[in-house]
């Protein structure tokens, strides 16, 4: 049997197809290396799209950051935290729903990690998952930018972002 499979794999008509796949993978690797992404290997390949921080009134001591994280790699990744100089701490949060109908309560809960599936996306958006920025030391105004570092696993990887401060998402 083994002999038969070996014979099939090495049969002439399969060779061109295998080399075509290899060539395509090589091209993908080249493209990925050229893009501003986390290097491949044992680390996830994640890019960040449309990040923004909510501009909040001075009386608020917290705000939220939203973005879309795209994982182009074949390994799942996790958003495990973030930090910024303008606040005490930043934590990944999920929105919770409890109860039914009018009695339904919405809340938020801190989580250790938010998953970014392989070849998938993690959407942080108003009313949903978000990064909560707690203990604001300053209140950045609409139109400014804030430095924010997000932490990803596996690989203890960091991505440094310039996050625009806005009152709402850009349509």
């Amino acid at each position, binding site marked *: 049997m083994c002999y038969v499979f070996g014979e099939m794999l090495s049969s002439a008509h399969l060779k061109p197809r295998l080399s075509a796949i290899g060539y395509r993978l090589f091209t993908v690797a080249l493209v990925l290396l050229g893009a501003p992404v986390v290097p491949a290997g044992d680390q996830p390949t994640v890019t960040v799209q449309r990040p923004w921080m*909510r501009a*909040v*009134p*001075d*009386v*608020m*001591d*917290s*705000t*939220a950051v939203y973005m879309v994280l795209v994982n182009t790699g074949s390994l799942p990744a996790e958003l495990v935290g973030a930090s910024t100089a303008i606040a005490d701490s930043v934590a990944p*949060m999920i*929105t*919770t729903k*409890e*109860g039914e*109908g*009018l*009695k*339904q*309560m*919405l*809340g*938020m809960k*801190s989580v250790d990690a938010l998953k970014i599936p392989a070849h998938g996306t993690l959407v942080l958006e*108003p*009313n*949903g998952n*978000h990064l*909560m*920025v*707690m203990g604001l030391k300053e209140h950045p105004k609409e139109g400014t930018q804030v430095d924010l570092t997000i932490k990803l696993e596996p690989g203890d990887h960091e991505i440094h972002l310039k996050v625009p401060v806005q*009152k*709402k998402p850009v349509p």
Partner: protein
Amino acid sequence: MNVVSPKTTPVPDAPPKRPFFDWRVWTVAIVLLVAVGLSILFGVKQHAQQGFFGMRLFPLKAAYDFKLNGPNGAEVRLDQFQGKAVLFLFGFTHCANICPTSLTNLTDVYQALTPEERKQVQVVFISVDPNRDTPQTLEQYVTSFDPSFLGLTGRKPAIDQTVLAYGGSYEMVTGPTNQPNDYSVNHSAYTYLVNPSGKLELLYGNEKLSDVRQMIADIRAVLREPRS
């Protein structure tokens, strides 16, 4: 000989005479009338209810006349806004996601109305966290969205009674540090629309508020309703 008798001459084109009381005609007419009548009665009613974007309450009942505290702690009652459409929601200012999102959407809705319409609409944010939200904090908070917005809170019994009267609920959730002021509040996130006659008319889940076009269509319809 050919004798033509007028009596036997047929008149082929003359229509057959129908009796005035033809039961078939009358049956059809009556059935049609009843059908049209019923569809007007129920169809219009149905349309009025389905025509709203928000969840419409039926029959409409007087909205609970809450008595809470506004800027500087002055008492504010819902009934003070008779003649205006009131959009109100529960929340707290330490809320970083749901509350600012709802208020930002309501700001877009409010500011999309004409100046004339705006005079007939009041947006109210009721804090269920009087421990941390003072009238001053609340005023600064809500007016940062729109200067006309009103922030209310009160003593816990008054807040609880209001939340209960509108079928909502809320609960404090202790934060990770266990410090007395480290807590979050899970709360109902509906926006309630009280019509100018003081009746609770429409409900909106927080996700609906971002549809500015449909929201202002509802508000305009409510403002046009005959007052009772």
